[in-house]
């Protein structure tokens, strides 16, 4: 008589439980996704105060007070209007008294173009200004510059700024529309209510 005993199957039902425990472990200890952020370069610390006289008409002054109110070029403004105002100010095609000084400049890939001589944003906030409004302002300013660069590259190269090659992007971003945001030391009008 042949010994036809079947080896009993191994019960694998607990395997699922074990893998569930592992899964839950990974769900707990890991974080999903990537971080998004506004990338900025801080100016290096210098001892002497760098106070180059910049002609007033070249400066786009944005001030935010302790109550998160916006003052742009001596006018009360809403954050939502800031982008259009910044675009209008920095646009190299706008000439006149209210706009920054223009010069002709030889730029590789673009030829001789009209650019702003200097055009900077001066951002001033209070110590009690909230971070939320600060980011909104930074975002709108960055958005304005980005839209201007986009329009410019569409006009010159026929494609969006993000699709241009590195050299084309540099030609625009370093010469025509640089991002120059200068941040002043915050004032302390709102008091130390932290």
């Amino acid at each position, binding site marked *: 008589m042949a010994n036809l005993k079947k080896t009993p199957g191994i019960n*694998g*039902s607990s*395997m*699922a439980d*074990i*893998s*569930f425990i*592992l*899964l839950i472990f*990974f*769900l707990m*200890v*890991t*974080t*999903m*996704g*990537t*971080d*998004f*952020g*506004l*990338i*900025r*370069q*801080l*100016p*290096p*610390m210098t001892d002497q105060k760098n106070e180059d006289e910049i002609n007033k008409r070249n400066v786009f002054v944005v001030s935010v007070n302790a109550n998160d109110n916006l003052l742009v070029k001596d006018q009360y403004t809403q*954050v*939502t209007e800031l982008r259009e105002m910044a675009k209008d100010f920095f646009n190299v095609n706008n000439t006149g008294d209210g706009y920054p000084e223009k010069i002709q400049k030889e730029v590789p890939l673009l030829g001789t173009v009209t650019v702003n001589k200097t055009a900077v944003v001066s951002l001033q*906030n*209070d*110590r*009690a*200004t*909230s*971070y*939320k409004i*600060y*980011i*909104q302002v*930074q*975002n*709108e300013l*960055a*958005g304005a510059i*980005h839209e201007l660069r986009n329009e410019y590259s569409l006009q010159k190269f026929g494609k969006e700024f993000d699709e241009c090659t590195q050299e084309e992007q540099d030609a625009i971003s370093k010469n025509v529309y640089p991002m120059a945001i200068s941040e002043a*030391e*915050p004032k*302390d009008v709102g008091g*130390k209510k*932290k």
Partner: protein
Amino acid sequence: MAKFKKDVVTETPEISTTSLPDIIFMLIFFFMVTTSMRESTIMVEQRLPHASEVKKLDNKSLISYVNMGAPLKAYQNLFGTNTRIQLNDKFAGVDDIQDFIASERAQRSENDQKLMTTALRVDEKVKMGLVTDVKQALRRVGALKISYLTVKGNPF
């Protein structure tokens, strides 16, 4: 003579669960690949502001995080409700940033040190005074590349 088969019990066959672990394992692998380890528990409130002009932060190993916000409920009786800075797993003051950056630098190779970014993960209710103090501290130690972490979305 026909035999009557009596006890024909028609049992429903057992559902085979052998593929269940495989499915879960697939999920685990998915999570292992797409996520990264949480390096520290966040002890401050963090509701990041929204912004649309954002860039993705690549290369997580080159980022040092500075968290700011009011302490979470569990820590409030110890640390109060004022805005605090959290570095690694500890609450810290503005003066500690210098040491923090120094120790973060020491962990990276010389080539990577230039590429290091300090990510400010700041709650939207924080006042700019503290943020500016931190920025000044970063300037003093020469950590000039910063990033304001935000949530991608409409800022209004």
